[in-house]
Structures are given as C-alpha cells and as structure tokens.
C-alpha cells in the first residue's frame, strides 16, 4: 500500500521540473507524512528523477591519480598566483586554474605556516566581505604549535638513507567543471601500459580524462559549479598513490566562492582535510577547527613512515619494512614495524559543523599506500612472490605487472555513496535533518549504476563506503542469482593476517560496512564464463538516517518482491571478458586461516595489555530522550558535545591503551579514532568475527543495528607524533551535531595543553585549551 503511493508520488515529482526543488520538498513534506515515517528516503525530499536513464548503460569512471612530482629545490621566480574568482559568488576559470596547478610548488613549503604573504584573494575578500587589516597566504595556524613536526627529518628533497626525497601534489577544491586534462600526463601508466592503453589496442580502461564532465550519467544534466565541489573541481574522483618512505607535501588550495550562499543549498566554503587514519602529525591530520578560507592554501605534510619508526627496526634491516623502487621488485628498506603497513585510505573534509555536507558535495579522495609487501605489482612470473617462496615479501595482490609498483589494471578503487538530486538533476542535501541523511541513488565512483568490463582473472577491489549516513551490506551475484565466492584481504585498509573466504559460516555476503569502512576483496572472475554479468548488490535496508534497519534476503531483492529502500538492489555490473595473459597474482586461498600469513599484527605482550590504561567513551544522548543532543561521555563524566577547546583524553605517546566504546542510545554509531588503528579485543565481551580477528581497524561499529554491538573494546597505541587529534561518530551528520571529541597525544610529563586555533579571514589566533579531569 505504502509502496504504491510512494511510486505514485515519484511519478508526479518527475514532472515537477519547473518547480523549484524547495517548493517540491515542501510539497512532499506536507503531502506524505505517513510515507516519510516509514521510508524517509531521500531524507526530507522527493525521489531523484532518472531522466529515462537505464541502469548499466555507462562505463564506470576509474579514479584519476593526482600525480606526485618531486618537491622543488628552489623558489619559482615567475610563478603566477592563484587565479582570482569571477565574482564574490564565483570561482576561478578552469583554464586559469589548470595553468596555475600545472606550475611547480610556489612558494616553497615552510615548517611554520607561511604568513609572510597575504591571502591570494585578499582584495576580493576586501571587496566582498570587509577590508582585511592583515591576512595570510596559508591558513594553517601560525607558529610553533602547528609547525610541521620533524620537518627536518621528513622534508628533504634529495633521498637519504632509508628515505626517498619528498614529493608534492597540489589541488584546488573548486566548483564542478569540465576536466581540462591537467593530470592526464601525470598518470603513472602514461596511457601506454597494460589495460590503460588506447581502446583501439583492445585494452579496457584507456579513455583519457580530458573532457569529462561532472555528470552522473549521460542522460542526467551536468552538475553546476555550486552543486558539486571536488579536488580540482573535476571528475573522475582523485586517487593519491603514495609510497612508504616517500614523504608527501599536499598543498590544498581553497578556490571556493567567497560568498557562502553560493552553495546550492549545502556545503561550507571553509575546509580542513583529514587523511583518514594516516600515521601523520596532528597539524597535518585535519583538526576540525584548523580550517582555511577561500584564497588560502594549507600545506599537509604526510611523512609516510611506518608506525614504530622510532622504536622498532631502527636500523632498517627487516626486508619486510621497505618501499618499492623503480627496478622490478626492487625495494629500499625503511625503519619501523612492517606489521603496521597500511594500504587503502581516503582523505576527506573535516570542517567543523559541515563535514557531512562537504564530503557529500565531493570533498573526498582515495589514497593507496604502496609498500614492499603490497606494492601493486604481481610480477610477470610469480617466482618473486611470497606464495612461491616465504622469503619473498611481495604478496603479489592482483594489480598488474607493467610498472614496478602501483599497477591499477586489476586493482580497482570503488567509492560507494548514496546521493539525491533535485528535479533539475542538481545534487541535493537536506541540511535540517540531523538524524542522518540518506540518498535514494547509490553512485559508484560518482557514476550512476555503471558497468565495468573486467578480465576473466583475479581482481582486487578496494571498496570504500563514502556515504554520509548510509551503511551497506554488499553481495556479489551472477545474473542468474548465484553468489560469487571471494576473499576479504584488507579491513579498513589494512591487509589482514589471513584472507577470509566468503560465503563462510558466519556470513554469506560481505559484512555490514559502515561509513568510512574499507573492505579490500579479491574476486576471481575466471570462476565464471566469459560473457557473464555479475552484480554488486546492496542488501542493507535503511528506513531513515539513524542507522541500518535490517538485511534483506537476497532472494527478495532478486525476484523483485522487495520494495522499500530504493538504495537496496543492484548498484554495479561487472561484465566478464576474456583474459589472454597468465594470472600470476596471489591466490588468497593460500592465506586463509591455517595457511600462510599475509601481514601479522604488531606484537604486544600480556604484561603490556595488563598495564594498559583504560578509557571509556559512551556515545549517545545525555538525557536519554531522542530529542536531546548527541554527546560523548568520557570515563563516566558529563555527556558533552564538541568544544574544540576541551581535551577529553590525553594518552602518553608510546603507551598501550584499552578503549571501551559504548553506545548509549541504541542508534548506530560508526566510531572513528584518528591517527592509529586498533585491534578489536571483544564485541559485547565475545571475540570478534573472523574478518576482524586478524584485522587492524579504524572504524568501530557500535549501536543497536545489524552488524553493531553495544560495546567494543580495542587495544591501541599512539607513537611518533604529538598533538591534537579527534574521535567521533562517522555518521557525519551525528559528528556535526556534535558527536566529536578532541584528544591530545602528549609527551610523558607534558602539562601544557596545545592551545586552540580560532580562524577567520585575517588569520588564525589561539585561545587557551582546557583539560578535562579525564585528560591524563
């Protein structure tokens, strides 16, 4: 009954193109309260029109590599400044922006924030907002507190012992525009190797990016500059290919409109960028209050060291702790604990109060870490792979072999996110509903229900849930309804001790995947006949943004009897084509429990666990009613919202800690702890499932929904870098309102709290911070 009327409304809304989106929204809200109560999807808005597009009629967009360059050694004398915006509500022209970004890094990066020059757009800001008495070209908080830690060690342009020379990339977050081909020359494959050769050679993925629009399907209208804001303002979504031992300087320009209203209804024009779970110093972690303004940049410095750099393998003589270099299977050894090797990250906006809106609007990129063990080269013979000889460190995960490292022919990043758009096809977000925002359409790599041609061989899929509030549970099923077996090899971007086969006794399909969780899986498409179509299917139903409701049986989805959450169903199609090569990539079956180990977890003794400092964080509502604000209670204290001044916990660097995450209200909260991954000791007192037993996690699902537990206990330790980090609910609507706390990593005996940066157009000043009694 419900469903029929819902469909009726959708049909009506498809004809509302001339009415403004808000009016349509308002009309919906008054017309259909009962339906909205059951499936409020998209949250507080009519269904997204599809413009007669049919599913699986467009190829998927693959990620575009930023393309790292060697850091310059001398200042650029004649480099042009960041081009000005066209108006107070405008952004720079795409051509000018590309020309600017094509230049080398200028001015040279500095240890302390560069405040020696004014904001690039100081004049425009003066015209549009107010005359500025002072301003700074860099929005990083000034002075020592936010100076790059250990800059001398990790910024050398020339390589030194156990470290490569620093590289850089730069991008400007700006309004949607046509890709001008800026990065086409910087793709590591050069469009000349493997599957990235031109299509005329029979390769699968050889379409260059110049000319791509920000358009989710050819039938849909292109996105306007104020609807979508991305790195460069362009599509495809961006990928950072990073190597251990090679420090990275990311200069992030803010080229968004000075006028905050020029956002088509959502999104803040101030930015802070968080490299999700990077082992990075606090000033480069994207603290929510360390944001920067239009016309400024912020230098993020990611040293790319293994955790344990200072205490483990200090002589760099462990062959596992190494980074790929240019020779075939060549490496350079680095310091640190190879058991801390990470693989699949993402970085995204972390702006105070506006993280959900900005991430949804496009401020998110993926980042692959390459290492000797996970180098993105499966080798041409297999003789140098770990499966051939345990002394070989290269796991040879599916990737390709044309390049010494970082092959992406068979190693594919998939970014899943639910979206909604208005009658004009422009991206829509409901800023008033803070229970959580759901879209009705799932995009994969920003393409609506794409297909992807794949070879009949093994692939690695790096699947990221990049949604705001939606959890997924994914199944891989042939067109005839048969589940395709696969292995999970990485959980939250970290290669596990053992590969876990699916289906298994605990789960038929991939486990529930909360916001920001990453699952790396290996699928062998040679299991099916060439010509077979395989679907990625979402089985997890939401009714609203509070959390997932239940897993829908696959049969109900396949036979069409399920109607409800429009994001349940097929979201992507794989088309299996023939493979003429020999698949030398690892067979994950060798690495299942009882077999070989991929990456063991860091060593911790019983004594260290017994002596660990315990902390408890309770995520919920302080007074138990649904209408109270979200809070986090630390160690039984007051339920608190976010105050960037307040330090709720202050671990001592290098000490093991046991954190208890508890859910107070039954809602689902995917909790993220910055800076370091932890190992889950228990879920509701019991051991975690197979795919978490040998895993290192940075998202911990708690709550009352499917895949949740009321409490999770984890073991964690913070090393190498100090400063101000965060812990929060990664349902970013909850995070923004304001389930977020600050913790500081400190030296033993440190008593002074790092002061709190407060930013405006004229620069950043500091206010005193405050330690809660729980901060010790």
């Amino acid at each position, binding site marked *: 009954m419900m469903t029929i009327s819902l469909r009726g409304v959708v049909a009506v809304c498809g004809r509302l193109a001339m009415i403004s989106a808000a009016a349509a929204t*308002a009309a919906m809200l008054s017309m259909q309260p009962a339906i909205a109560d059951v499936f409020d999807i998209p949250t507080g808005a009519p269904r997204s029109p599809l413009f007669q597009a049919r599913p699986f009629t467009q190829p998927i967009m693959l990620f575009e590599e930023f393309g790292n360059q060697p850091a310059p050694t001398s200042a650029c004398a004649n480099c042009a400044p960041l081009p000005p915006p066209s108006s107070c*509500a405008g952004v720079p022209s795409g051509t000018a922006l590309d020309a600017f970004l094509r230049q080398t890094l200028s001015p040279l990066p500095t240890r302390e924030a560069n405040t020696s020059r004014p904001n690039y757009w100081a004049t425009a800001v*003066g015209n549009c907002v107010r005359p500025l008495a002072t301003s700074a070209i860099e929005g990083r908080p000034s002075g*020592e507190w936010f100076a790059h830690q250990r800059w001398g060690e990790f910024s050398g342009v020339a390589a030194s012992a156990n470290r490569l020379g620093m590289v850089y990339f730069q991008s400007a977050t700006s309004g949607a525009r046509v890709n001008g081909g800026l990065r086409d020359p910087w793709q590591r494959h050069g469009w000349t190797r493997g599957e990235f050769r031109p299509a005329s050679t029979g390769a699968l993925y050889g379409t260059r990016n110049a000319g791509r629009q920000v358009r989710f399907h050819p039938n849909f209208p292109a996105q306007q500059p104020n609807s979508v804001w991305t790195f460069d303002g362009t599509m495809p979504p961006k990928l950072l290919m990073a190597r251990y031992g090679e420090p990275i300087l990311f200069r992030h320009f803010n080229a968004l409109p000075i006028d905050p209203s020029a*956002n088509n209804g959502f999104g803040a024009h101030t930015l802070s960028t968080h490299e999700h779970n990077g082992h990075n110093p606090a000033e480069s972690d994207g603290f929510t209050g360390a944001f920067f303004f239009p016309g400024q940049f912020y230098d993020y410095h990611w040293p790319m060291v293994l955790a344990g750099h200072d205490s483990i393998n200090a002589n760099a003589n462990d062959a596992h702790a190494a980074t790929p270099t240019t020779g075939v299977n060549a490496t350079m050894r680095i310091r640190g604990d190879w058991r801390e090797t990470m693989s699949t990250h993402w970085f995204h906006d972390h702006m105070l109060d506006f993280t959900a809106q900005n991430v949804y609007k496009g401020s998110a990129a993926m980042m692959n870490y390459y290492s000797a063990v996970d180098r993105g080269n499966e080798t041409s013979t297999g003789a140098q792979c770990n499966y051939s000889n345990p002394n070989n460190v290269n796991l040879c995960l599916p990737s390709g072999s044309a390049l010494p490292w970082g092959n992406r022919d068979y190693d594919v990043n998939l970014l899943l996110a639910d979206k909604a758009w208005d009658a004009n096809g422009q991206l829509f977000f409901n800023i008033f509903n803070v229970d959580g925002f759901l879209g009705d359409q799932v995009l994969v790599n920003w393409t609506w229900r794409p297909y992807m041609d794949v070879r009949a061989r093994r692939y690695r899929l790096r699947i990221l849930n990049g949604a705001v509030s939606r959890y997924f549970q994914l199944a891989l099923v042939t067109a005839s309804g048969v589940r395709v077996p696969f292995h999970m090899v990485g959980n939250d971007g970290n290669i596990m001790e053992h590969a876990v086969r699916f289906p298994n006794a605990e789960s038929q399909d991939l486990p529930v995947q909360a916001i920001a969780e990453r699952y790396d899986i290996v699928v062998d498409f040679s299991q099916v006949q060439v010509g077979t179509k395989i679907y990625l299917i979402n089985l997890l139903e939401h009714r609203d943004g509070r959390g997932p409701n239940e897993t829908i049986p696959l049969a109900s989805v396949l036979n069409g009897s399920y109607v409800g959450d429009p994001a349940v169903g097929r979201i992507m199609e794989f088309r299996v084509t023939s493979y003429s090569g020999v698949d030398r990539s690892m067979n994950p079956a060798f690495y299942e429990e009882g077999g070989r180990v991929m990456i063991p977890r860091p060593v911790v003794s019983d004594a260290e666990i017994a002596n660990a400092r315990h902390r408890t964080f309770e995520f919920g509502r302080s007074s138990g009613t649904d209408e109270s604000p979200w809070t986090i209670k630390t160690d039984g204290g007051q339920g608190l919202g976010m105050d960037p001044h307040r330090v709720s916990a202050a671990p001592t660097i290098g000490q093991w800690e046991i954190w208890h995450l508890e859910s107070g209200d039954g809602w689902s909260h995917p909790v993220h702890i910055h800076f370091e991954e932890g190992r889950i000791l228990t879920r509701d007192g019991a051991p975690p499932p197979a795919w978490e037993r040998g895993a290192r996690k940075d998202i911990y699902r708690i709550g009352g929904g499917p895949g949740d537990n009321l409490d999770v206990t984890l073991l964690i330790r913070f090393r190498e870098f100090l400063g101000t980090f965060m812990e929060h609910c990664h349902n970013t609507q909850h995070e923004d*309102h304001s389930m977020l706390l600050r913790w500081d990593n400190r030296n033993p005996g440190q008593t002074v709290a790092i002061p709190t940066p407060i930013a405006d157009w004229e620069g950043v000043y500091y206010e*005193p911070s405050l330690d809660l009694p729980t901060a010790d």
Partner: protein
Amino acid sequence: MKRELNTVFAGLGGMLKWLTRNGAALGAAALVALASMAPLALAQQTRWRADYFPNVVLQDQDGRRLRFYDDIIRGKVVAINFIYTTCTDICPLDTAQLRRVQQILGDRVGRDVFMYSISINPESDTPASLRRFMRTYDVGPGWTFLTGSRADVDLLQSRLGIRPVEQNNLSQHGTSIIVGNEVTGQWIKRSSFEAPQLLANLLGQSLHNYAPQATAQRQSYAVVGEVTDTTPGAYIFRTRCRSCHTVGEGDRLGPDLRGVVGTRPRAWLERWIRDPDDMIAERDPTAIAMMARYRNLPMPDLGLGETDIQAVITYLRTQDEAAGHGR
C-alpha cells in the same frame, strides 16, 4: 542600492550594516568596490528561502502578529529555540544559556543577530505568560518570544528539523537551538549544553561570513602558553553556571555564590547541584525559600556527574580562599 545589494550579495546584509555602522568612509569604499565586481548571477542558489520556510503568523509577547518568514527570519542571522513557560527541567537551562549568549553579543542582538523562543504549548502560552517568563529571566531587548497555533508551530518545527511532540509529552521536546543565516542559507543545530561563548561566536562571527572583526581580544602566540584558570571546575562554572551566578559580583538570575561552600552543608550542596528538581519536588525548605527570593526560578538540573560536582565545589572554595573568605 543598499537594499538591492543586501539581497544580491547573499550573506552580506549584516556585513554591509556592519561596515556602514563602523565607519562611513570604510563602508563607502567597500560599496564602491562591491559595485565594481561582476554581477552575481549565481548568488543565492540557496534552496532554503520563502518556498521552504512556512510564512505562518505568530504572536509575540506584546501581541503583535508576525509572519515567520517575512518578519522573523528573512534577511537575518537568527537563533531559534522551542520552549514552554511551565517547563521546569531543560527550558530554564536553555533560557539561561541563551541569556548569556545575548549578554556576550550585547547590543548586536536586535541589530544583526535576532533571537527567538517559540512556545510549543501555544494554547496555554499567551502573550501575557510569555511576558511573565521573560521578566523571570530578565530577558533583554532583541530577543522575542512567540506563540501561535499548534499546527503552525508543529510545521515550523518539522521544517527546522525538530520532531514535534505530543501535547502530553512536552517535557520530551526537542531542545536544540537552530542557528542560521537566512540570506546565506546556512543552518546549524546546536545544543544549550555547549559553552555560550561558542554559540555567540557562531552567531556573531561564522554566520556573518566572519565579517565582523573578532571582538574578543586576540591572544598573541607568545602568551597562549600561560593559561590562567583552566581547572575543570572553572570550565564547568564558565559554561554551565555563569549564566545565572557569579562569585562575588552580586546576584544575577540566581544568588551570588561567594561563601556558599561555607554556608551550606556539603551534602546539601552536592545534592542541590545533582538533583535540584527532586529537592524542589520534596519542598526542601532551603530550596523553596531561595526560589521565593529569586523570581521563583528553579535551579535547573545540569546533568553533572560526581566528578564534575566535586570540581565545581572545589572551584568555588578556591575562589573564596583567594578572596579571603570561607576559612
């Protein structure tokens, strides 16, 4: 011209006023410069305008009829919360905290920041009861209290992202404070549990596109290491108590707390901070006598835990000792 710019340069309404108020020369220069920029065809793409917000008619404490969109929020930076005048648990804290926000923002309230409290019990809350409520809390000008029809208030709540509650369940109502700039279309939900200073910064700075110069004295990098009183008790006092109390600076909404640690038995004081509503319900004689002296304003339940209560008491004692009291 100015009116047009106010509309066209979304987000600049308050800023232009600020500029013209704070120096004619500066303002004029800015206006000339603004006029020389390209026309803003793209501006005001915000969806949250007249066709989103209901233009329902409400009545203020003086019985004036105001339309929600046209008269109350249009072109303004606003803070909106929902209360009812017989509410005894959370509304007193909300109101006291908002009063503190109003004090921090000073005469900007009513000029470029507007505060509204809307009754969710409109049948009972007449303009007269709103006036009484305002007198109780000593609400200053620029902060308007409103009542209307139940259907209209429910609709308003829904549009602002707050679930309306049944009339027999008013104590479970949404206590969030909605802050926003109608011109720029930025809307944020906040809680009264936060430090009033943060809310004031949001209303006075961030939502004005950071146009007003920071009023707080900027601390230079050199002095930030020398933080004065950052004990937990001081923090709780600053964020939770100072809206109604001082230590040694006289009565505000509630009594001056100078010497209270010495005057009241420790157990009584702890319980009064922890469960004031219970003690009022039990008609504790000290509590009842105090209420009579302070506008019949109940001490709100602040939701403090044991550690916090001890920290506040410690803070009060050290304040007394520093001043030579309470020995």
